[in-house]
């Protein structure tokens, strides 16, 4: 009965090969204001599942930034009989009751990107503290000999209401503390306009000639900070970023941003897909989820923690271009053509 998608429990019966597995997997993603979820995570996940188990049905829902909606979507999926639930929680604590409800019905749960609370079976993500740390070490290496304890750094963090922002900040500071002087530290609210104004205010406050480098928690804010640096004639100073946005790659090519941190969506989505298919078929997951993490409700979860990559002029081609995130044509618009050439992109 491999062709009938409506046939049920028998499919789960131990060790059947993935190619003939049936049943359904639910994918719950948190929001759609950032393009990544619907543009990368969802298609990569679906493609991988299709490749592994062509007869498995995927149910998808996006919570649009609301934890309540996500709870209702989880209920709908549990009611509709999914076998595995892959959840990128909008609120990693609030999802707990949904995770428990799933477990009560014998549904396995994979926490995706954010570590959900409750009896979760597996977890796939990047390590946020590591991201911050990588930004720090990256900045130190760009500064090179200028990285002295008196070198003044302007730090623009993310929105403090976002718990990830605190991870980035602590990772970054653990890397640079003692090596440089963080002379100005404020939240840019993930807003380029706010970040730009705060950078200008910092320049006015500290004096343009006294600043050695700028830290931006992500690429969005870096666009604003780069403009303020340009207005103050400081374009040559180091500037960090994160997310490997197209505009950031272009700035890196043009030399107005030093590097960005690339958290590849593809390996993350594919790891989650493999975990889900293995759970559906009853295959072991230990080959994928090699480490463990303890979540907020005290459950120990087998985890697959991926490593982020620092992208600068030297490896654009081998990272974002190779992964199909952007084409060279997209990056090298006429305005960046010259810079591209000298950076060896063509």
């Amino acid at each position, binding site marked *: 009965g491999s062709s009938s998608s409506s046939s049920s429990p028998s499919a789960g019966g131990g060790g059947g090969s993935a190619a003939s597995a049936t049943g359904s997997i639910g994918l719950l993603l948190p929001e759609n204001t950032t393009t990544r979820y619907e543009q990368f995570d969802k298609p990569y996940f679906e493609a991988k599942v299709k490749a592994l188990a062509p007869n498995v049905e995927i149910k998808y829902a996006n919570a*649009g*930034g*609301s934890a309540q909606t996500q709870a209702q979507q989880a209920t709908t999926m549990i*009611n*509709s009989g999914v076998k595995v639930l892959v959840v990128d929680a909008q609120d990693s*604590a609030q999802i*707990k*009751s949904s995770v428990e409800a799933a477990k009560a019905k014998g549904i396995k749960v994979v926490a995706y990107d954010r570590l959900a609370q409750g009896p979760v079976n597996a977890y796939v993500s990047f390590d946020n503290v590591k991201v911050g740390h990588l930004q720090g070490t990256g900045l130190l290496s760009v500064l090179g000999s200028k990285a002295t304890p008196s070198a003044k750094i302007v730090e623009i963090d993310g929105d403090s*209401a976002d718990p990830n922002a605190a991870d980035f900040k602590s990772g970054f500071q653990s890397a640079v503390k003692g090596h440089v002087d963080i002379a100005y530290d404020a939240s840019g609210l993930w807003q380029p306009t706010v970040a730009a104004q705060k950078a200008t205010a910092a320049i006015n406050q500290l004096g343009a000639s006294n600043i050695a480098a700028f830290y931006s928690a992500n690429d969005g804010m870096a666009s604003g900070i780069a403009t303020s640096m340009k207005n103050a004639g400081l374009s040559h100073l180091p500037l960090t970023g994160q997310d490997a946005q197209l505009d950031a790659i272009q700035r890196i090519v043009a030399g107005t941003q030093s590097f960005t941190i690339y958290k590849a969506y593809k390996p993350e989505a594919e790891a989650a897909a493999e975990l889900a298919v293995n759970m559906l078929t009853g295959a072991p997951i230990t080959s994928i989820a090699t480490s463990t993490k303890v979540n907020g409700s005290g459950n120990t979860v087998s985890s697959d923690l991926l490593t982020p990559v620092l992208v600068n002029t030297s490896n654009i081609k081998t990272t974002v271009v190779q992964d199909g995130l952007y084409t060279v044509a997209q990056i090298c618009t006429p305005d960046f053509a010259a810079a591209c050439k000298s950076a060896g992109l063509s």
Partner: protein
Amino acid sequence: MEPPPGIDPTPGAAVAPPVDPRLLVRQEGLRGYLDEFKRKVRGGELGSLPVVIGLIVIWLIFSLKNSQYFTAANAEFIAYYMVGLGMLATGLVFVLLLGEIDLSVGSVSGLAAAIYAVLSVTHHWNAWLAVVITLLSGMVIGGLQGWIFAKIGVPAFVVTLAGFLAWQGVMLWLLGSTGTINLEPKALNALFSGNSFFLGGQIFGAYLLAIIATVGFGASLFLQQRRRKAAGVPSRPTGELIARTVLLAIPVFLVAWILNKATGVPNNLVIFLALLVICDFVLRRTTYGRKVFSVGGNIEASRRAGISVPMVRISVYAISGTFAALGGLAIAATTNAAGQAGADPNNLMMAIAAAVIGGTSLFGGRGRVWSALLGIMVIESINAGLFMLGLTLDIQYMITGGVLLAAVIVDSLSRRTQKSSGRA
């Protein structure tokens, strides 16, 4: 029941004919009803008709799209999840009747959940005490906003917009570093939780509720008729009363039957309906309700009639705040947690939409609390269908937005028609 003393201006003067010959009186029988119905539709007095039709259309469409839609389990889903937002919408109906708006309900509901969580979980207070404190906080918050509006004169729109931002801030601060707090199934939270049903879900329970509703409604109609006849003022014919009672009984027993097929009547729905009955009574049959309508109609007239406009305003905002807090507890019970996402701005939008879809005017002085129930049923029916279909978010937004827009346009157009035919 004694009439007020007053001055009797009777002596002398011929009594004018009591009825104006220009008033187009209704014919007897069915034909008269149809004529009047046509006239009302043309005049824009649509009542709940568009919503009810809309609801049926929505159910039909989703049933065609998805075989799982027209099931008892899904009815249970709708009945359960609509309550939280429905409570926010109920509070908003009071505010809309004043012709004002309360943009803070979403934030207040989030804050209330946080207050309850902090008191009962973090500080281990008695759960019922925590509930009382939470509802009081909602009342005080609403009352404070009402006070700034009524006494200082800052437009309600601005006060509650500030509240929208500020209470969210207070909530974040309360939840502090821990972020979301998971709740324990105690007190009101247990009643609101997804597996608490009236009389433990016994079949008897649902029908008991249906009987109470039908008998209560019918009895009040006949009582009123008798009193009007006794006093010699115009009253409705008996046939109409029977028809009305039957028209209520049909959906009520249908719902009871369907919910019984699933797990029974959720307790949160029972509480919600009880509150609606109380609010309806307060608005239509007490002097307080009359004051709310009159302030919504003409502030200066109310003031000159000796009504304390500030008190009405403050109390209405306090009611709205209390319902927001109650709704916040109900919403928190659906996820068993109070978190930063509690103050979801969408909740505000949906609650306003529910009230307006249900037929309460944005222009003040016209509406009923039942519109909160009708409107939220529409919204939750759409949600349930969209969740099942697994559509992308933009399409979901488009559909929900489209329904909201349609509702508001119907409200506005019917008001315009009414105005041009002299009813508003």
